[in-house]
């Protein structure tokens, strides 16, 4: 599904960048642009970071 409508970023892309190491909302934004315009999807992205971060990155996750 499209999570970030401003930048047309899908959940698949967001999941991929998280699995590739983006461990915060800010890192996801840098990696794929999601959440950089109106910011409404940031909450959803934060949940996705929590769910999909590789185990070793987990403790660094969330709002950074």
């Amino acid at each position, binding site marked *: *599904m*499209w999570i970030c409508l401003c930048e047309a970023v*899908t*959940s698949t892309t967001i999941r991929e960048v998280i699995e590739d190491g983006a461990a915060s909302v800010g890192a996801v934004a840098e990696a794929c642009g999601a959440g950089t315009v109106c910011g*409404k*999807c940031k909450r959803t992205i934060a949940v996705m970071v929590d769910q999909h971060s590789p185990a070793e990155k987990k403790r660094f996750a969330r709002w950074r």
Partner: protein
Amino acid sequence: MALKSSGTPVVKALNGLLTTELRAINQYFLDSKLAAHHGFEHLAEEFRKASFEEMNDAEELMDRILLLGGLPNLQRVDAFATGESITEQFQLAKELEEKAVGQLKAAIVTAEKAADPGTATMLREMLLEEERQVDWIEGQLGLITTLGDTAYLAQQIRS
């Protein structure tokens, strides 16, 4: 004229519902246009109808809020996602409608507590409508499961 959107619990509840309606208008409108873009004219028409029905609801809520001395908050719109496939669109629509139904039930209780049967009656009618919408969405998801994506979508091409 002093209008206060944050006024009474009833106005707050109505503004909460309005936020959800505004999201629904946009979500269904985008669903409709995406369906049309992919050639599913029939489905596009259904989503378009849903979007317009939500707009009628939004209008009723706004009128009621104003009547109660509140200011309708059109600035706050919930974030939403839209499906990349028709099935995903229906799943997200179901989530949205379930949220609306829960919110309506809570708002009816609030209106009754505030001895405001007028608002409660209006909300009851909206609740029935939303429940029918949930039923329709569940029906479509059921059809997709029974028929498979291809057979279901083949029925959605013509308007």
